[in-house]
């Protein structure tokens, strides 16, 4: 029958139309400013700088290594290194950025800066309602506007933030152990200071023992 296919198709639209009154799944749109879709955890928008503690300026993790600036595909990051050093979270003196600007009107949210950062200092935000009436300065964020606390990072990406914290804690523990070992060694050296000839003699005694296997190996080669 001519028109059968059209009627079949219209039946499908009628089913969808009627279905949208009974089944919530058939309603695909939401009324945006009043209603909001459930946030997805992995969502990313624009980068921000993470800081530890209460003071954003003192706690910034960034050490101005400029890897992100170099790797950023659209080149939207601008960093100026400090000339002096200040202690970071581990207490080690580090260079810090005196300027860290991101032009988010240029940024394309690719998160390559996050991937290349060796210090877990830059992460992706989920904030997307960033419209401003200022065309030029309004979207050029400086480091104060970019700084967000680690707690904020935990609220937007809980799983990822927990992993990052675990990794940093591990690194910190390692660094502390190393520092401790260095301190112990330094103390031992200081203690051994007056009796300096003793370790030197030990080293001299150790030297032939260390070279002996090497001699053996060369002999083995000759035999082979």
């Amino acid at each position: 029958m001519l028109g059968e296919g059209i009627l079949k198709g219209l039946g499908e639209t009628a089913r969808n139309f009627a279905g949208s009154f009974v089944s919530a799944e058939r309603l695909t749109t939401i009324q945006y400013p009043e209603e909001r879709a459930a946030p997805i955890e992995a969502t990313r928008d624009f980068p921000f700088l993470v800081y530890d503690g209460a003071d954003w300026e003192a706690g910034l993790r960034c050490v101005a290594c400029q890897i992100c600036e170099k790797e950023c595909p659209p080149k939207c990051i601008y960093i100026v290194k400090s000339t002096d050093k200040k202690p970071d979270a581990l207490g080690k003196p580090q260079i810090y950025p005196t300027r860290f600007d991101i032009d988010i009107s240029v940024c394309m949210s690719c998160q390559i800066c996050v991937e290349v950062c060796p210090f877990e200092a830059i992460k992706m935000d989920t904030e997307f309602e960033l419209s401003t009436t200022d065309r030029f300065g309004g979207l050029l964020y400086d480091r104060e506007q970019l700084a967000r606390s680690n707690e904020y990072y935990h609220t937007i990406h809980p799983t990822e933030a927990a992993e990052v914290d675990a990794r940093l804690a591990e690194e910190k523990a390692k660094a502390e152990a190393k520092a401790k070992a260095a301190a112990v060694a330094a103390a031992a050296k200081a203690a051994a200071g007056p009796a300096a000839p003793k370790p030197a003699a030990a080293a001299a005694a150790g030297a032939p023992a260390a070279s002996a296997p090497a001699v053996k190996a060369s002999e083995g080669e000759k035999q082979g």
Partner: protein
Amino acid sequence: MSTFVEEKDKLPGWNRPPVIEPDGDGELLEVAMGPHHPSTHGVFRMDVALDGERVIRLKPVFGYLHRNHEKLGEGMSYLGSMPFTDRLDYMCPLTNNWAYALAVEKLTGQEVPERAEYLRVILGELTRVVNHASAIGFLIQEMGASGTPLMYAFKQREKILDLFEALTGARMMVNYMRFGGCRVDATPAWLGAVRKVLDDLPQFADEFENLLRGNEILMARTQGVGILRPELAVNAGVTGPMLRASGVNYDIRKVDGYGIYNRFKFRVPLGEHWDVYDRFMIRLLEMRESFGIIDQALKDIPGGPIMDPKAKLRGFRPKPGEAYGRIEGPKGELGFYLISDGGPNPYRYRIRPPSLINLTVLEDMCLGSNVADVVLIFGSVDIVLGEVDR
């Protein structure tokens, strides 16, 4: 002196475009369709010479969306080009990522772990479903069915894009694949969500078919329109659903078996009438084959790492040489050609875009047909201007 066309006539395998003689003694009307024409979904111009309603000549003009992608790629690191590939064919960013990653992996000789290969297949086939559903939606919209089929396709697309967002962080600009694997691992919850979406997909395909397949208006508008002969398709380098709708059995997933495609069972649908209707049906059938591939991949996906441990993210310098990575993208053969001179960025970076090359046969398909059919034939090619102009 012989003309260019006469010279070409002597070559074997050259398909001379049929010359349509205007009837009557009216003047030809030259119309510029585009660059801002609703049917071109982008900026593209067709300079058409008309005799009444009939098309006598058609000249496609592209380049309005040129973004200097290839030259930019030569200036930045291998990693830096990855997010830009998302923006070529923005309907299917994951397959673009895949083709580029494949080319760089060939250049550096990296291995991809099993799990990453499976994830790539799942994501690539989901992308194919998204692309084919919306391509059909756009085609029907150009026929005059304003909105309904397209919205049905987009309803389904949105569910798949939510999956992409949950895994990669973005709906379209995913920047997901890396040289030697993938960026983030899929959680069991995510794979469960894919399974859930996949279970609904056959029902969606049935609904879509009920809505469209037997429709008399659709059949009257598309059957016997825009015929592309297989010889011409092969000679012009047409690939993808366009080529298979012309009855040529050529699918790079079968021919090349890149990745792990030789492990999956799927059929390659072929057209018999070479017209717009066949191109529409091929896309419907390929969608159904994709469901099967995703199903098999979800069943077999192993655990393990998703990145080659030796793979470097940045600052690597491949040995001097060249590599061509190609995949069966949803639109056809998508290839990336790279030449390395041993530096941190490619010496030459070139893309073989399926959209552009499929578009070159537009005139041959349109000659002699009505203006209204030009819109339809153009829609059946399924292009994205971001990839045509790069």
